[in-house]
């Protein structure tokens, strides 16, 4: 009989379903194949014209029916597609999930295409006044729904029959990990036996790209798109904006075993720590990221020597990768030089609100498949960063535990510790 409670007497949380969509494809099989082959999903932008843009590449998901229908509809489709895969794998009724929904998704705004069409459907007044005039004459809710922060989760709740008020959250680039953390906590508190945690982001619009560009956050290595995302390299010059989704069915180990579900992995621990230094830069001593990693280890009941692999945040910005190296070497000490660490973002780019969930999905697969996906484009090592980055080629390895990092703009840091087996 397996132990059903963790080191703190809380229910152990199992993963019984995993779903993922990235620019590499729909579903685990396609994604895993490409990821372990070191294939990049980064490509030239075709969704909108790139005139005047410094960055003309991305990891957009261009192959879904909603890919050209705006951020809200695409985010919904990404979330739904990943969740369908996860719920089906878990063997649950896809219309009656029976647990709460936690959705990490980007903040929504009225799309420019809608702004243009509303504005140009009238001639009276100018600017915002005209938009308001047209708005009050609208006869249907479709455009309105795209501007409500709770609407994507509301639709998902209808679709999957999740219980209660769905929670939509944002902790910037840590959002996907936070969605998982909220699910873990709800199960540990005994509020539910299972939870559906999704991170989805289909918000790579021209305006989003320009906003990140103006903050100098994006790579401008446009010529060879698949080479642009190069985490931890000396010539890294920013992240690559991307889209995707990851979904996990979380379940108390007890409930999972009772219904004979296959346990795909264990969500052992979650840790977080907010930074109070700056809106886009982290505290120079790395203390918040360090504290988040340590909090996750403590929550998981594991020591620094018990993590086999780190799924890095590894965005490919000069700042993040330097700070992540600092915090990992502080926590893991000398051992860091021999611990495998890789960044999925080298292939899929930065999926923002989805990243924590997408990378948790890949972390779980890393353990199940005993294969570590590489950090590609690692051609010019940064001498200041000495890590075993699983450069350019996948590695076969037994991986029993993974630390997955997510560090966000605005100082929200969340780390997850996952394990292959319940202990």
């Amino acid at each position: 009989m397996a132990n059903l409670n963790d080191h703190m007497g809380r229910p152990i949380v199992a993963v019984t379903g995993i779903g993922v969509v990235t620019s590499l494809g729909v579903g685990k099989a396609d994604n895993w194949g490409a990821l372990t082959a070191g294939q990049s999903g980064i490509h030239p932008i075709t969704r909108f014209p790139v005139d005047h843009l410094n960055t003309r590449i991305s990891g957009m998901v261009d192959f879904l029916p909603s890919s050209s229908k705006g951020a809200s509809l695409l985010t919904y489709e990404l979330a739904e597609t990943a969740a369908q895969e996860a719920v089906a794998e878990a063997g649950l009724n896809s219309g009656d999930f029976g647990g709460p929904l936690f959705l990490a998704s980007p903040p929504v705004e009225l799309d420019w295409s809608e702004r243009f069409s509303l504005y140009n459907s009238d001639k009276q007044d100018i600017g915002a006044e005209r938009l308001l005039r047209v708005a009050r004459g609208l006869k249907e809710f479709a455009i309105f729904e795209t501007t409500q922060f709770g609407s994507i989760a509301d639709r998902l709740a209808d679709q999957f029959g999740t219980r209660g008020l769905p929670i939509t959250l944002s902790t910037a680039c840590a959002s996907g990990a936070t969605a998982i953390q909220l699910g873990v906590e709800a199960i540990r508190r005994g509020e539910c036996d299972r939870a559906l945690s999704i991170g989805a982001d289909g918000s790579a619009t021209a305006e989003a790209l320009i906003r990140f560009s103006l903050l100098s956050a994006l790579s401008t290595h446009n010529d060879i798109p698949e080479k642009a995302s190069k985490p931890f390299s000396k010539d890294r010059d920013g992240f690559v904006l991307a889209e995707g989704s990851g979904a996990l069915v979380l379940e108390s180990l007890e409930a999972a075993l009772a219904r004979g579900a296959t346990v795909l992995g264990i969500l052992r621990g979650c840790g977080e720590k907010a930074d109070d230094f700056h809106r886009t830069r982290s505290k120079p001593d790395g203390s918040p990221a360090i504290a988040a990693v340590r909090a996750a280890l403590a929550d998981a009941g594991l020591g620094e020597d018990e993590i086999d692999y780190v799924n890095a945040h590894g965005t490919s910005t000069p700042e993040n990768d330097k700070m992540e190296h600092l915090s990992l070497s502080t926590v893991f000490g000398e051992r860091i030089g021999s611990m495998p660490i890789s960044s999925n973002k080298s292939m899929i780019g930065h999926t923002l609100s989805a990243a924590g969930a997408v990378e948790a999905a890949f972390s779980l697969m890393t353990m199940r498949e005993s294969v570590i996906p590489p950090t590609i484009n690692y051609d010019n090592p940064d001498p200041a960063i000495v890590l075993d980055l699983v450069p350019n080629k996948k590695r076969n390895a037994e991986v029993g535990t993974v630390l997955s990092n997510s560090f966000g703009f605005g100082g929200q840091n969340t780390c997850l510790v996952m394990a292959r087996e319940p202990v």
Partner: protein
Amino acid sequence: MNPHDVVITGIGLVSSLGEGPDAHWQKLAQPGLEPVLEASRFPPYTIHPLPEIDWNLQIAKRGDQRQMETWQRLGTYAAGMALDDAGIKGNDELCTTMDMVVAAGGGERDEAVDADILAASESRNDRDVLLNEKLTTELRPTLFLAQLSNLLAGNISIVHKVTGSSRTFMGEEGAGVAAVETAAARIRSGQSTHILVGGAFQTEHSDMLLGYELAGYLHRGAWKPVWQRQGAEGGGVVTGSGGAFLVLEQREHATSRGRRIYAELGPVVSGRARRRLGGLEAEIAALLRQAALPNGELLAISGASGAHAATAAEKSAFDANPAIAARAFSTLTGHMKEAQFPFAVALAALAVDRKAAYPVFDATVERPFGGVPKTVLATAIGYHQFEGVALVNAA
């Protein structure tokens, strides 16, 4: 009394009525108080504007103020007020171990840039190129940070040093409900000892009005109290700028540091009615049953928005329970979206603390409440989706 009870030890409030729990109590306790209205800036809509605020009182650095637009400043200000009120502000140990759940929408866009682009779109067919051309040259780089939902929490961390954990929930009134519900659950389960929870809404920006009006939710024409907008022109919502933050604390934690307790936060119950199927009134009744209302006369601080369908459903649910004496505070403050539920809980806590009910906010519809309120109901029934209620008990 249980050492793991959730108690309220700090309140930060801003609305058109003023700032701070005391100012709000004093105003709202005046029978026949008139709302502060602004009808000339966004015709045909009336709004409840922000009062005069000296941001320096809670956001000491000008540089921090400049990094934010009004929405983030307002939230950071109200949060600082709640921290001050709870004796936590400036206490490093308490701030670095404090958790935070913020209910947020988005920040303000640059209206001038948007208007410029829209005007140019009338004579251009290559609108996507126009967009790139204008946005790359006219957007202020740091404005993005003032628009990001999670950066209200980010600014609270930077300005007030609250760094235990930081989560931002989105989704209109439901975000406020879920934030309070999750915060309370964390304290009850021993995951947290003290949490900052709340939100802010700044309505004095056309995009914030557009967010309601794309579905025709805003009331138009002459102002009326919340319960009297059925059948009037428009959709019934009159918005207001404001913010509400609460410090929720484990009872044992609050008593051990000798803090004054406003009230105990009882059950917080949330829901998602299938409104298109007409289930809202039954859902509200179910939430009230789950909250287990006490016997006898009950004061209810209602977050009713005025939105016709949702407000009618809430009124019917109350009418079916004659013990309830409702006070719809949006009559006097306007609807504050994500801040609506935290605001309702704060007003409920004040009534319990002051051992007195508020007078009627609308003499035509609301009825007097005679006794001392020991338990007060707080509600937020979303104008479009999601709903929640809580019971607030004497300390």
